[in-house]
């Protein structure tokens, strides 16, 4: 009897060990995003993309920029995301190899983005750049654009989240150009021209302004009064036609630009107003900020709000591929449920594909 019980216990033991091994493998595969289904092929011929041939999931995925890490190489590629943002790395070689790997045989290449502003830069291990605060003349601003553009292009980047056109930088002291709104606008314009001669798109940020000022420590949701001067650089750059992307911040604004009590990045009014004269890319600031998160009961509500407001490119730096996949599914359900018009998604994807050099039909 005792021997029989021992035999049963042994069998149970082996079954449990096998079960644990299987479950462990499944958990590892899930954590690495390997269970996320691979998207079908996209119809791309001679740089022409058939938008109607893309699934809704593929279109939403094109609007998402994530952190480009080696660990998430397969899920990002399988989901056919729109872009990867790279954090600091030790050498040019590592940057270059990462980008080559991601772009290899991608039907629609990724946007490869960085925050190279000058003093704020992920390339500190490799090279130092002139801070925007030390640029005084148009020539210097143009040269800075060319220098940074050459460097980024050589590594494989194609979209830079710079220049900062906030009028004042009370926190970092080095991220804004010097002077008043007119001079800042002219310097930003020259910088963009220089940068974009090197086939790297620039992004004016952070619309509608006043993001680099000292804030009340007890407020997680930050508000600011925006004046005519704050938005002057955007009007100037849009009129000149050089700015290809504008990044919108999480600040709740009143005054010249009124976000009506919600963070600018989710304010349809703010984005529609910006869109009036601007047909470039509207880029959301990174969405994992308390200023935005605390505004919603759930992250799903936040995801829908960010897309619904009209952002073309949404920065979600969550390292968990399953969460990125879930965001796409949540937004997809919102589009299918009529909460977000599919025509709006189509318009955003068209702008993204055109910025990537494709013709959309």
């Amino acid at each position, binding site marked *: 009897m*005792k021997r029989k*019980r*021992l035999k049963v*216990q*042994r069998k*149970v*033991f082996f079954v*449990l*060990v096998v*079960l*644990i091994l299987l*479950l*462990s493998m*499944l*958990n590892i595969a*899930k954590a690495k995003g390997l269970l996320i289904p691979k998207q079908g092929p996209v119809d791309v011929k001679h740089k022409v993309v058939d938008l109607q041939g893309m699934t809704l999931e593929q279109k939403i995925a094109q609007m998402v920029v994530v*952190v480009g890490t080696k660990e998430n190489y397969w899920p990002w590629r399988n989901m056919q995301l729109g872009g990867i*943002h790279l*954090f*600091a790395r030790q050498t040019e070689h590592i940057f270059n190899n990462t980008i080559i790997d991601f772009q290899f045989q991608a039907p629609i290449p990724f946007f490869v983005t960085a*925050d190279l502003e000058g*003093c*704020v*830069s*992920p390339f*500190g*291990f490799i090279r*130092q750049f002139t*801070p925007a605060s030390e640029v005084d003349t148009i020539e210097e601003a143009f040269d800075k654009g060319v220098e940074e553009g050459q460097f980024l292009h050589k590594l494989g980047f194609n979209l830079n989240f710079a220049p900062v056109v906030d009028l004042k930088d*009370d*926190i*970092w*002291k*080095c991220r804004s150009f010097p002077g008043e709104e007119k001079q800042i606008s002219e310097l930003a314009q020259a910088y963009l021209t220089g940068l974009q001669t090197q086939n790297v798109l620039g992004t004016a940020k952070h619309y509608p302004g006043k993001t680099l000022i*000292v*804030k*009340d*420590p007890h407020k997680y949701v*930050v508000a600011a009064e925006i004046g005519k001067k704050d938005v002057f650089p955007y009007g100037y750059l849009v009129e000149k036609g050089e700015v290809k992307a504008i990044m919108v911040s999480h600040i709740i604004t009143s005054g010249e630009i009124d976000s009506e009590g919600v963070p600018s990045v989710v304010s349809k009014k703010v984005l529609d107003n910006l869109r009036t004269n601007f047909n470039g890319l509207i880029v959301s600031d*990174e969405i*994992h*900020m*308390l*200023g935005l998160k605390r505004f919603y009961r759930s992250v799903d509500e936040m995801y829908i709000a960010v897309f619904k407001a009209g952002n073309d490119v949404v920065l979600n*730096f*969550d*390292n*968990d591929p399953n*969460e990125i996949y879930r965001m796409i599914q949540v937004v997809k359900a919102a589009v299918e449920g009529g909460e977000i018009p599919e025509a709006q998604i189509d318009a955003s994807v068209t702008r993204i594909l055109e910025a990537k050099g494709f013709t959309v039909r």
Partner: protein
Amino acid sequence: MISERVLFIINVSLGLLSVLLVLMFLGLKLPTLGQAQYALDKEEPVCVIQWGEESTIHQDIDRCCLQARQQFECRAQSKDNLDWMCGTDERLQIWLNNKAYNYCKQQPYW
């Protein structure tokens, strides 16, 4: 030779582990050590931006964390009640106390 009693205890433990793994597969997230450290630390999170000789407190810890993560590597280093220095440039550095650093570590992009 393992006794029946010991084997029974091992099997119960493995059974519990399997249940845990199934729950994790279904989306259960276990709290991390960083969260415990953060919760137990009663200090206020502090982030200081140092540009050359100038130091400014950055009130927006979230933005501070994101910049620290994307631009720099952080290492334990003490200065004026701050415990971590993030930076690759001698001119621009981000200083965090332990509370802020543990908060940053919990962020989905860290």
